[in-house]
């Protein structure tokens, strides 16, 4: 006979998050009188080390065999308290949480009502806890390898790290060459190093690395599976995410060592698809450049002497600032075009424009020593290493910085007139220039939505892919095994991109090196005596876990594929499927405690 349940209940204050709204003492007192409850405590932070120690200690000293923690959402700390329960020497699935923060204190202001609700939630959790059963943690093997989407600096750096660790990497690049947006630049700040010197060795390493397979002119067409075992379909010749090469009967082909190739070799442009099995995915798809046609008041596209910073890069690479309506004697740079601007819906700072403008301004001073170079700015942001020093040098070289963003540009003879307020002089100005450079910012790529659907990746309010936690998990996503690198997550310069790419590679390596990943323990099981073999579970399961046993005519559920969603248990007309950890008895006991 099973031993009687001996339940410990722990009410968390969460600082004042819970305690300010819920009378935690009263809830603990209430819990202490619930059936099978041996001990009920409240504590400032249950997730802290001393908080967890309370649980392990009570299990050992008071012989607890069930634990209830009333605190935050299980999404937040279920692993923490399962760990503490295991530490105490009992099965971690003997722990049940009651969410009295997100579902109670945070959404109520009435202390009395919130306290009563917290009591009900605790009573419900205790009722379920008494019926909990032990489950075993389970793991499955990992397919060794990674897919990296995007062949810019971020993608290449991430790919090389994973490859150097000894795993096969498939680098999927939509264009016909590696290098991404950086390939469009001339020199980089703050070193003024030539981009070619930076990029060519990197591309060379990627192309010659034995562990890296590069797909050019390719898109990811389909992604299935989960962390450790993704099935990624890549369409070479495909023009967009999620769209294959048409229904032209092109089958899969054996995987060659190299598909397509940068640097002049003939790319294999024949449409074909490849099925890749990998353990991790790194998204490094980069950004779009803001289109200044969306700021019509700046006259871009209308005046030949209003150009973007990228056009200026090409000009500077060629060392040629001729061909404008007038000889260039006055060059004006305008900052924050398409950034920090609610009018175009981009509230964020693009983080690179201040520095690349300082770089271009300096290069113009060198190229045309007689020209007056003026930068119109709102704030100058030089946060990177060596950046402020570079800005200092730009000013020392007589680049003139005027505070005030340009409101409008119009034509006067062959020149253009910048209409602005010099906010430090406190007066409106009309500034004549022969050449205007718009410091265009970064935007989420236009195909972000398509890739977001394919990978089920959420986007943040700015439209870029959303990291799991802005501070503590900056390269992880909510999808286990999918990581972010570079500007697809938000604007950043090359050093930050490389740092993030290496972080993403390192995180992507965790499942590969570990060789296994944990899978859901709370799976559905079939009681064959009750199963009529109707197959409804087979129809409803989104993961293909149940199948009818051809010999016995009853359903069998593949525990590796089962995600524990419970759809089959609900659908089963014979009630033959038991959803572990969420059994009918457990849930009904919870409901009884709530309404009883």
């Amino acid at each position, binding site marked *: 006979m099973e031993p009687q349940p001996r339940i410990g209940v722990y009410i968390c204050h969460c600082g004042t998050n819970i305690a300010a709204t819920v009378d935690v003492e009263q809830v603990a007192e209430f819990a202490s009188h619930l059936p099978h409850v041996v001990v009920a405590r409240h504590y400032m932070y249950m997730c802290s080390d001393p908080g967890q120690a309370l649980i392990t200690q009570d299990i050992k000293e008071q012989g607890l065999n069930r634990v209830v923690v009333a605190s935050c959402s299980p999404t937040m700390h279920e692993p923490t308290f399962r760990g503490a329960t295991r530490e105490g020497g009992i099965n971690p699935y003997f722990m049940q949480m009651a969410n009295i923060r997100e579902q109670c204190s945070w959404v109520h202001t009435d202390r009395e009502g919130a306290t009563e609700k917290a009591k009900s939630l605790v009573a419900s959790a205790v009722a379920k806890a008494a019926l909990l059963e032990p489950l075993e943690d389970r793991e499955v093997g990992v397919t060794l390898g990674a897919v990296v989407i995007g062949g810019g600096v971020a993608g290449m750096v991430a790919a090389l790290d994973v490859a150097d660790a000894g795993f096969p990497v498939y680098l999927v690049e939509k264009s016909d060459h590696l290098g991404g947006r950086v390939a469009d630049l001339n020199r980089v700040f703050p070193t003024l190093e030539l981009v070619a010197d930076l990029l060519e060795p990197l591309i060379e390493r990627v192309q010659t690395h034995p562990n890296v397979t590069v797909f050019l002119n390719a898109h990811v067409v389909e992604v299935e599976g989960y962390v450790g075992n993704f099935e990624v379909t890549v369409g070479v010749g495909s023009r967009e995410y999620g769209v294959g090469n048409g229904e032209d009967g092109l089958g899969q082909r054996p995987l060659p060592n190299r598909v397509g190739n940068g640097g002049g070799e003939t790319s294999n442009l024949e449409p074909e698809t490849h099925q890749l099995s990998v353990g991790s995915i790194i998204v490094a798809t980069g950004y779009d450049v803001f289109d200044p046609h969306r700021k019509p008041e700046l006259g871009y596209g209308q005046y030949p002497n209003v150009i973007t910073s990228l056009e200026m890069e090409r000009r500077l690479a060629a060392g040629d600032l001729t061909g404008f309506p007038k000889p260039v004697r006055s060059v004006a740079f305008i900052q924050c075009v398409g950034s920090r601007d609610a009018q175009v819906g981009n509230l964020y700072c693009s983080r690179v424009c201040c520095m690349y403008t300082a770089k271009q301004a300096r290069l113009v001073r060198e190229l045309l020593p007689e020209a007056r170079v003026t930068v119109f700015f*709102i704030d100058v942001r030089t946060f990177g290493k060596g950046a402020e020093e570079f800005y200092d040098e730009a000013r020392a070289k007589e680049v003139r910085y005027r505070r005030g963003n340009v409101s409008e540009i119009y034509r006067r003879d062959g020149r253009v007139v910048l209409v602005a307020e010099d906010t430090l002089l406190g007066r*409106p100005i009309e500034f004549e220039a022969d050449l205007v450079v718009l410091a265009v910012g970064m935007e989420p790529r236009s195909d972000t939505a398509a890739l977001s659907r394919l990978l089920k990746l959420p986007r943040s309010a700015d439209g870029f892919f959303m990291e799991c936690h802005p501070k503590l998990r900056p390269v992880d996503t909510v999808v286990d095994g999918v990581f972010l690198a570079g500007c697809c997550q938000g604007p950043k310069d090359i050093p930050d991109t490389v740092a993030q790419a290496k972080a993403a590679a390192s995180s992507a390596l965790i499942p590969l090196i570990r060789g296994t990943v944990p899978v859901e323990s709370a799976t559905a099981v079939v009681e064959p005596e009750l199963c009529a073999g109707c197959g409804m579970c087979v129809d409803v399961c989104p993961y293909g876990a149940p199948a009818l046993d051809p010999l016995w005519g009853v359903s069998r559920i593949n525990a590796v594929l089962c995600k524990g969603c419970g759809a089959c248990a609900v659908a089963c007309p014979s009630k033959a499927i038991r959803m572990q950890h969420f059994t009918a008895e457990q849930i009904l006991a919870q409901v009884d405690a709530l309404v009883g």
Partner: protein
Amino acid sequence: MALKTEPMAEELELFGCIQCGKCTGGCPVARKTVLNIRSLIYQMLVEPEMDVSAHPELWDCTSCFTCVERCPKDVRPAELIIGLRGQLVESGRIPETIGAALMGIFRQGNPSGMAREDRAAWVNGTAVKAAQKGCETLYFVGCIPSYDPRVQVVPRALVKAFAAAGLDFGTLGTEESCCGNEVRRMGEAGLFEMLVEENSELIRGVGASRLVTTSPHCFNTFKNEYSLDGIEVLHYTQLIAELIEQGRLKFSHPPNLPERPSPPELGGTGGGRGKIIVTYHDPCFLGKQNHIFDEPRAILKAIPGVKLVEMDRNRERSLCCEGGGGRMWTEGTNLEERLAFQRVHEAAETGAEILAVACPFCLLTLEDAVKVQGLDDRLQVMDIMELVEMAIDDDE
């Protein structure tokens, strides 16, 4: 008068301002007067009090809303001017002519203080249905088009065009009152609310599905500041463009211009036949503020014999004529320089013989400027509807 700055700064959400200067930079009057809206916002944020009466330049603002359109932080700088004017209105320290205009609206429903019973006299014998009897489209004429003899031709042209297109429309006749757009911008919030209440009741009572206005100013306030329960608010350029598009309004011949200035050295024909070169001035309340740029151009392009040329500063960069925000009734602090002067020269430089407008205020200010600048031998200012009428009007 010392105004405590914080409550208004909070109410108008000025705290988002990053002092970038795009507002003052783009402000058309900042270039000719001391009005500096960026600086006024800064004072509101950092000074505990402001002496509002020490800022006569507050009456320079035309409420063109370029500052609002350009602000990267969604601060609405012009609303501060309206708020500060409101303080002056409350204390009675306002230019006499502004006071007279407000009084005229309060007493007679129009800023000129003309008799209410004369409001429908513009029809000049043409039969126009009373909207109160029910109609699909309610035509709101507006104060200036109702009373100003120069502008009255516009509503007359419009009703002819409506009739030609077989539109079921009516007007409010002498019951029509000022829409209040300029009233709100002059800072008289109380009178504006009263007008909104009375007009809304009157307009809703008609039961029309659409409301069309002569003036972009009336259009703006009805569209953005009234809540008219699903009545679609249109400027006439939208409706006329639609009627042309649907083939309901047809042109039979090029406009019969009584006089053709257009000297040959400017690319014109020296009078008589040939292409009529027209440039179009975007009114602030239609273009910048409501992003209606294409419909007026579509109308002009549809008129036979018209060649549309653009000024360098067009659409979003159109230069304000200084007729809005109460400036029709007060000169502002700089009496010498007028933006309208600059604007008519820009129009003349295109080689156009007609400067087309779609706003009663623009019509008056620019026509005046053409005369003062001595350009009347080569440039005529006309409302788009005058050209339309001349191209459809066969019978009369």
